């Protein structure tokens, strides 16, 4: 195989080309072989691995507090780190801070817009953030003086070009992470209102977000109307992992307590568990009888239980490892729109379109 080039060239060129081609073929063959072997091992789901785990018994959970006071659909709620205060927001523009032990209202603010879809408590317990159809996220410092007009101290932080769907303070009162109907998420400095980082990648409205537990580092997960759940690096703005197995909008995402996985709830009536290190979906929580969408999900402290609030007014409690439902809870008279487990795991709170919030515990 003599090349038409000069002799020196021939001896230099042919071995290099041949070696490259040879290596290429060999690596392709190896790759295929390895993928075949991996595929044989990959056909496991979490519940199969968890077969030997002891099953859970009967679960009786009851409402222990009902918070009444909103004049319209409750859309969002969040716990304060003190494990007793709750902030909630409603379609009628009201944001209320409650003492869940006594059910007393401690603060109330009327937003200039309706449909306040997002609210969050600051880590210090001294402020709350909220927003919705106003396309903004505003921070209200909470005054000790109950008579003080909270609206006067309002600080506008985030500005999106469509509705605010979710917000969360990061580890401190200084930064807020937001998600929006404009298809982006963004990180903001509370003091200056400056945009610190924006996250582009969703092809439609982003509906929810959750920050990774602080030990796991600077990442967060978001879910959207594009059926995708994206994991983001907060410093670079890059999407580091993406999962697309849901068949409809993802309304809620929540990290597993270890930070190695996250759960999602969707309009496709299923909850799913995605393991970040296996880089795939490892469990689906569904039943043929459950046909209404999931609005919100959260884990119990150990990660063994997954609570899901549904549009059929119920709460389904799932055994995360075995994939089975351990309890179905009734009580709300309309859609459950929001659900969060308290910071110490003793209770969980649900908010509903029936205008109320309920705090539930395990009866034993």
């Amino acid at each position, binding site marked *: 195989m003599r090349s038409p*080039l*000069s002799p*020196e*060239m021939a001896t*230099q*060129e042919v071995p*290099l*080309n041949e070696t*490259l081609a040879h*290596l*290429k073929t060999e*690596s392709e063959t190896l*790759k295929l072989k*390895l993928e075949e072997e*991996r595929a044989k*091992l*990959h056909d*496991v*789901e*979490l519940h199969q*691995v*968890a077969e030997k*785990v002891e099953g*859970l018994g009967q679960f009786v*959970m009851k409402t*222990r*507090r009902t918070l009444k006071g909103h004049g319209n659909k409750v859309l969002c709620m969040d716990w304060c780190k003190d494990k*007793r205060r709750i902030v909630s927001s409603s379609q009628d523009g009201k944001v209320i801070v409650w003492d*869940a*032990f006594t*059910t007393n209202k401690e603060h109330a603010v009327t937003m200039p817009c309706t449909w306040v879809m997002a609210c969050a408590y600051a880590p210090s317990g001294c402020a709350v953030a909220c927003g919705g159809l106003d396309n903004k996220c505003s921070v209200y410092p909470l005054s000790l003086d109950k008579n003080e007009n909270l609206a006067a101290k309002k600080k506008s932080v985030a500005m999106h070009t469509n509705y605010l769907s979710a917000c969360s303070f990061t580890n401190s009162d200084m930064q807020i992470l937001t998600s929006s109907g404009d298809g982006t998420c963004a990180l903001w400095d509370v003091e200056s209102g400056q945009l610190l980082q924006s996250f582009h990648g969703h092809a439609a409205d982003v509906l929810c977000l959750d920050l990774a537990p602080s030990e796991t580092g600077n990442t967060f997960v978001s879910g959207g109307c594009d059926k995708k759940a994206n994991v983001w690096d907060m410093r670079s703005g890059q999407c580091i992992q993406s999962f697309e197995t849901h068949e409809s909008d993802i309304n809620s995402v929540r990290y*597993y*307590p*270890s930070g*190695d*996985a996250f759960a999602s709830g969707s309009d496709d009536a299923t909850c799913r568990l995605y*393991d970040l*290190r*296996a*880089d*795939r979906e*490892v469990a689906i929580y569904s039943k043929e009888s459950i046909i209404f969408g999931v609005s919100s999900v959260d884990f*119990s*402290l*150990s*990660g*063994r*239980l997954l609570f899901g609030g549904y549009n059929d007014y119920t709460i389904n409690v799932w055994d*995360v*490892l075995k994939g089975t439902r351990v309890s179905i809870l009734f009580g709300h008279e309309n859609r459950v729109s929001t659900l969060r487990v308290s910071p*110490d*795991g*003793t*209770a*969980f709170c649900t908010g509903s379109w029936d205008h109320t919030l309920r*705090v539930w*515990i*395990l*009866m*034993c």
Partner: protein
Amino acid sequence: MSTNNNIAQARKLVEQLRIEAGIERIKVKQYFSSLFFPLLVSKAAADLMSYCDQHARSDPLLVGVPTSENPFKDKKPCIIL
């Protein structure tokens, strides 16, 4: 003249091949590191199970807590005026 052109062309070709070899080397390297990520589901699942097991005893919604320790246990107490 044409010899010089040939050598120049040849040099370009060798350079091109070197770059390609370099890229292939990186691909192979990336491929081998990808063997360790993602984790096998059996390994990842075992870790999830282990976390549940370690924390089950202190999960109030899973095993419950004594009445005295759960502030929500009693239904709302009457307010004494």
